[in-house]
């Protein structure tokens, strides 16, 4: 065998270098970009053919997003680190392996009427994205190379405007909230949104607290939407445990502290701790809602945000009567995901961390109380909760962990 290889090697090498006379190889002049390969027939870079993924869908780092009729799914396989993306229906799926990452990591996804985008953080602290149109399964890829250097973290979210422009909100390594934006997904600009200073509504995180927490700073677990009047970003100030909201005003930003989780009864804590797991959505009438977790009280909150005021409601206080007739306190609200149904009712899926179950809360009409129910409770579910409201029904999703396998993860889909 070895002798045969030695005999044929010069011939093979010659063929590779010169090409066959009848079928000449045309090398691409530049290195092909992410997600592309060189088409040696024509010598240009073309989108790489994406392999179909037939395995069980992982729930780890899964995201769902959609329009009225189409649901997109993306996730990172916790074992192979393959980034998966594609579409789901009640009975079928079309999932491709978009790329392979170096480890399991967070992703963000968003859609508009015509396009879907998936964003992740590269090893060089710069963002990557993969995007396709609603109707064509041809994915294109890009690296977010901005006008100035930036360094992202795993706290990021993405918004896609109707024209296809992208805005990625992220906590930078200097613990500020920044955005990197592009209208054409080619030229990008970086902007500072919030450096943690005094908010427009006068609320301040004292200098004695600022910078004392790890992780800390502003921009933790951000959520971003394209509201009718511009981009809105909700996020946690991890130093002071506040929910902050940044709203685009012209070319700048206006930041308000929405909730400080004010303490009325804590034996040990002088300031509340709220604003975790923030999630935003825009309702059919253009109204913006924010769901988030009061981490100190272990409750899920919702705020109707207008340009003038914030009305805060408790969605789920986590109290249940147990078998001993004690009122048990559950921690609820992690992995919250908010969407509005076709009637405009805010709907939130989230985790009950005490029961490892997946819950759904909905406020059927303005002014009525929130109604909660458990959607899935088999095994360990609730991580990476997702919700897509469709014209007909909804998809509730999440990760189901398998006891004994930290990386064992399956994707739970509940179609209603």
């Amino acid at each position: 065998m070895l002798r045969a290889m030695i005999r044929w090697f010069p011939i093979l090498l010659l063929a590779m270098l010169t090409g066959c006379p009848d079928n000449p190889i045309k090398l691409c002049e530049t290195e092909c970009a992410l997600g592309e390969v060189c088409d040696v027939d024509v010598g240009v870079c073309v989108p790489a053919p994406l392999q179909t993924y037939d395995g069980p869908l992982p729930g780890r780092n899964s995201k769902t997003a959609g329009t009225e009729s189409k649901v997109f799914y993306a996730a990172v396989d916790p074992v192979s680190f393959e980034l998966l993306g594609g579409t789901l229906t009640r009975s079928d799926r079309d999932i491709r392996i978009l790329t392979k990452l170096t480890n399991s990591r967070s992703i963000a996804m968003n859609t508009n009427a015509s396009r879907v985008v998936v964003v992740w953080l590269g090893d060089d602290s710069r963002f990557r994205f993969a995007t396709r149109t609603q109707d064509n399964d041809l994915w294109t890829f890009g690296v977010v190379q901005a006008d100035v250097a930036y360094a992202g973290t795993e706290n990021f979210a993405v918004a896609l405007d109707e024209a296809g422009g992208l805005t990625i909100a992220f906590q930078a390594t200097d613990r500020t909230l920044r955005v990197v934006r592009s209208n054409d997904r080619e030229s990008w600009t970086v902007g500072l949104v919030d450096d943690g200073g005094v908010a427009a509504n006068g609320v301040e995180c004292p200098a004695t607290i600022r910078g004392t927490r790890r992780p800390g700073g502003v921009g933790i677990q951000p959520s971003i939407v394209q509201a009718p009047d511009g981009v809105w970003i909700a996020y946690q100030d991890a130093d002071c445990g506040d929910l902050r909201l940044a709203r685009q005003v012209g070319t700048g930003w206006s930041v308000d502290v929405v909730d400080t989780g004010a303490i009325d009864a804590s034996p040990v804590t002088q300031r509340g701790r709220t604003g975790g797991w923030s999630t935003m959505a825009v309702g059919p009438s253009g109204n913006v809602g924010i769901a988030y977790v009061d981490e100190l009280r272990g409750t899920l909150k919702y705020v109707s945000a207008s340009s003038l005021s914030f009305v805060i409601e408790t969605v789920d206080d986590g109290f249940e009567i147990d078998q001993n007739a004690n009122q048990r306190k559950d921690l609820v609200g992690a992995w919250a995901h908010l969407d509005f149904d076709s009637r405009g009712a805010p709907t939130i899926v989230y985790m009950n961390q005490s029961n490892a179950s997946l819950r759904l809360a909905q406020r059927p009409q303005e002014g009525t109380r929130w109604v909660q129910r458990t959607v899935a409770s088999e095994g360990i579910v609730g991580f990476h909760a997702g919700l897509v409201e469709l014209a007909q029904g909804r998809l509730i999703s999440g990760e189901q962990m398998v006891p004994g396998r930290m990386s064992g993860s399956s994707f739970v889909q509940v179609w209603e």
Partner: protein
Amino acid sequence: MKRLGLMLLLAGCQAVTLGDSGAQKPTPQPLAARVLIGAEGLTRIYEVEAPDGFALDAAVRVVPATSSQWEIGPVSTTIPVASRTGAFDVDRFRVTNEFRNVSLVVPVRVRTAEDLEICRFQVQMASATLDSAVEATIDTGVVLAASGQPAATTSAATVTKVGPCAVDGTARSSSSQTLASLIETYTRDALLASGAQNLTVRPFEVTGILDDSVSLRRVSVFDNRRGGFAVTQRSNNVTLASDGLSAELGIGMIAQRATCAPPIEVNPAQPSATEPISPAELEAANADLALAVSAPTLQQMAETLALSGFLCQGLEDSRRPEDNAELIAVDDIGLDALGLDWLSVGPWVRASSAPGALPSLILRPQTNDFVISWRDFVIDVYADVQGTNVRILRLVTTAQATLRPQVGEVGQISTTIDALNITSADLTSDWLTAPLGPDIVLPWAKRAVLLFLQDQFVFPLPLVSPHAMRVRNVTVRDQDVAVFLDIEN
């Protein structure tokens, strides 16, 4: 705020708010507790009530003089006490204050028909002693006050004019007394007159022995832990005798249930009987005072604390790990013993607890300890999984712990667990890969309960003192537990 801090101690290191008991005035059980304050304790009470010294207050004294009028005083100052001793003289308690190098400035107004001049004279005495008998009276609480006229002894005083003045110490009054001697007399009289004021104290207020009805509410971020209880404590048979100041205390409690506690009632209060505390016990403990609380009262206190939410703990502290007392290192909890070593969790776990039933207490005087039993006590263990604080297991135990009281604490009796007997342990978790047998669960439960509860058995003293009360000794007796205390600052 200071008051709140004190109540922290009363409720066993948990925050409470103190308020009027309103309509809730529990009926006190007689002889629920007993208190004895010895001579050293009474003296100490005077010391802590007047830490800056002896308050000297006297009004103006008008003295006619030739062609003028002298207005001596007023003075309102504090003079340091060199030593203060208290001792029983038969059935009377005598307090002696000794002063050294007394120095004070006495103003003198020299008033004529046309003019007023304000002069100042410095009075200095090498020493002064004020001796007084004290008696106890009941006047909306126990009051110690001077009995009869105190006796003052002073060394010769020097009176020196301070600054310019038209008259000096040699000037004479209409009755031919020198101004200096009048000022000296004024100072001595001021000492005597202030004696009564300085010797009037309310010893129960100083030591925090409640003689009232109050309500305490548990402070918590979680609504289901916000219970409370009303306490009535009344003193009876207060005597000041050669043994010291002693009183019997009636105590009654009514719990307002926190919903985290089981919906059951506290057992009816049982008749109490505390044993007298002997001066010899007090002296042996080298303590200022002793408080004996009857076994039925302790039992009722434990039940009341459980019902009002004080045993529902955990998950309330969101401070950084270095400040957070709720965090337990994951290495200590030993998840691997349960087969949970596959679970990638953060460096800390946290626990929350809730009682499933009311605890019970048994005193063991022969070993100077007591046994607390509980049933269906729930401990939920939370860990950080994927950046999320999730419950990874629930442990429900029925157990008895032998608790040994510790000395040296302030405002509370902490205990160490000498023995722990888990009679049943039920461990449930969605995260287990296989069911666990009792051979694994029981040892783990014992370790976990020790880990979670080792610092939790803290018994508040039924005292609301503005001063720190340090536990010098604890004696478990047949009928009660006697706590020997020192009054600190």
